[in-house]
């Protein structure tokens, strides 16, 4: 059994997987007091809820996501309102456009960072490689690379992430997120005005053209989704990359296999994203009448679909579900969700990860974890290694 009242946020931040395993076993649809949400943890239930926006709509009253992003976004609306917010991102993030425009950018960014790491002889792959490559790649794709540097983007990300996961309504997290939001709008806002006056083919031109009316209304409509893409666009590739690298370096046999056969890189990427989903939860509303797993939800309930738990469900992944195994039979994971809110940036994230992992392994044949520093994972909604310290000589 599991004592739900005894579970703490800190316990989930340290390692949520034992709690998820117990929930899947004993209480697969359960109210979690420390987060004030219902948690859905089995693969079948998470997948069913993802593809049913009527029973589990994206809009939630008192949503920390809307609060953090300054309004509703494509992730917290359904139907036409969601499509209207998502459509301007298509020209930038569609797979064929990503393939046409982004690999060269990502390769150059990786090469520059690897040069710096080679000179230093050691690195934290989170701060020195995956985060800067990810945020600057994203800034290029979003057309703001000339406005902000990598440290600023990483700082923005941290503030937005603190706000979006603030289910417990911590005032310090709210203040941090709000300050970052104001800074971001002050930095990027003028570009919206420029593009309204003189459109180009970049993302902000598409965003500002998506609605009619005065500039401030157009910005208010687009900005929450813009912030959302900044947030997700860093989380999945940067922290997914750190997880994949940490897993490979902790397992010399699997790492050697990928070095011998770079065609295994995509499998390593998918397995790392499955093993620890960088974005672990999807928040959903629960209208009256919704029943899942035999549970009828109370009025005003909100639920999180725990994709990181579904990705470890033994009913789907077998008895080795908790192991990182790049040779496991191929199966779609839920780290990019599924259904109407399938991640618009999934291919961009995958392209970045495949290039960054392959370039890292190719550049440093003796790459290894620094034995002086243990790899520590942290987080439940957003989970990744806090650092991956390596030696490269």
């Amino acid at each position: 059994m599991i004592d739900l009242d005894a579970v703490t946020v800190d316990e989930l931040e340290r390692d949520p997987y034992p709690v998820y395993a117990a929930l899947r076993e004993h209480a697969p649809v359960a109210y979690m007091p420390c987060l004030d949400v219902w948690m859905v943890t089995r693969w079948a239930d998470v997948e069913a809820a993802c593809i049913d926006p009527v029973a589990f709509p994206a809009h939630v009253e008192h949503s920390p996501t809307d609060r953090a992003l300054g309004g509703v976004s494509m992730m917290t609306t359904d139907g036409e309102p969601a499509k209207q917010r998502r459509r301007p991102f298509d020209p930038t993030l569609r797979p064929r456009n990503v393939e046409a425009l982004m690999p060269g950018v990502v390769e150059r960014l990786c090469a520059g960072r690897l040069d710096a790491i080679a000179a230093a002889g050691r690195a934290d792959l989170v701060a020195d490689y995956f985060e800067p490559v990810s945020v600057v790649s994203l800034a290029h794709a979003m057309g703001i690379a000339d406005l902000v540097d990598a440290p600023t983007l990483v700082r923005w990300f941290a503030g937005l992430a603190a706000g979006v996961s603030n289910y417990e309504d911590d005032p310090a997290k709210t203040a941090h997120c709000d300050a970052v939001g104001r800074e971001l709008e002050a930095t990027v806002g003028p570009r919206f005005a420029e593009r309204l006056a003189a459109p180009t083919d970049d993302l902000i031109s598409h965003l500002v053209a998506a609605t009619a009316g005065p500039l401030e209304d157009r910005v208010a409509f687009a900005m929450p989704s813009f912030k959302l893409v900044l947030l997700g666009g860093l989380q999945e590739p940067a922290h997914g990359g750190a997880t994949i690298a940490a897993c490979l370096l902790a397992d010399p046999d699997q790492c050697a296999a990928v070095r011998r056969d770079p065609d295994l890189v995509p499998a390593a990427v998918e397995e790392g994203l499955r093993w620890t989903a960088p974005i672990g939860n999807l928040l959903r509303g629960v209208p009256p009448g919704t029943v899942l797993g035999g549970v009828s939800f109370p009025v005003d309930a909100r639920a999180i679909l725990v994709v990181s738990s579904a990705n470890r469900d033994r009913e789907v992944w077998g008895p080795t579900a908790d192991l990182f195994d790049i040779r496991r039979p191929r199966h779609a994971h839920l780290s990019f969700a599924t259904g109407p809110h399938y991640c618009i940036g999934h291919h961009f994230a995958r392209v970045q990860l495949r290039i960054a992992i392959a370039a890292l392994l190719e550049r440093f044949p003796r790459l290894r974890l620094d034995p002086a520093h243990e790899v520590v994972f942290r987080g439940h909604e957003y989970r990744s290694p806090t650092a991956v310290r390596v030696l490269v000589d």
Partner: protein
Amino acid sequence: MPWYPTAIAALSPAVPHPVTLGGRSLVLVAWEDAWYALEDRCSHAGCAFSEDGAVEDGRLVCDCHGSEFDLRSGAVRRPPARASVETFEVRSIGSGLEVLVP
């Protein structure tokens, strides 16, 4: 049933490549030294794979709602799609391909 020739020069392996053969809209996909041809229409909401599709680790993914399909059989590998997509036999001829379209 006729075999229709098609060129394969400079196709990216990551995205489905649209071709019209025998009046049918198809996508060609390269994966692990083999070629696959599938109808260019997701069975879920009708999105064109050539516009909104990607090849991810051996699966054809529809960007619209995340449905995934087996390249070989067209079978659903992940909902929300319920029905498989049609697949077509492909053979290599010289430097090109031929696709069998009923």
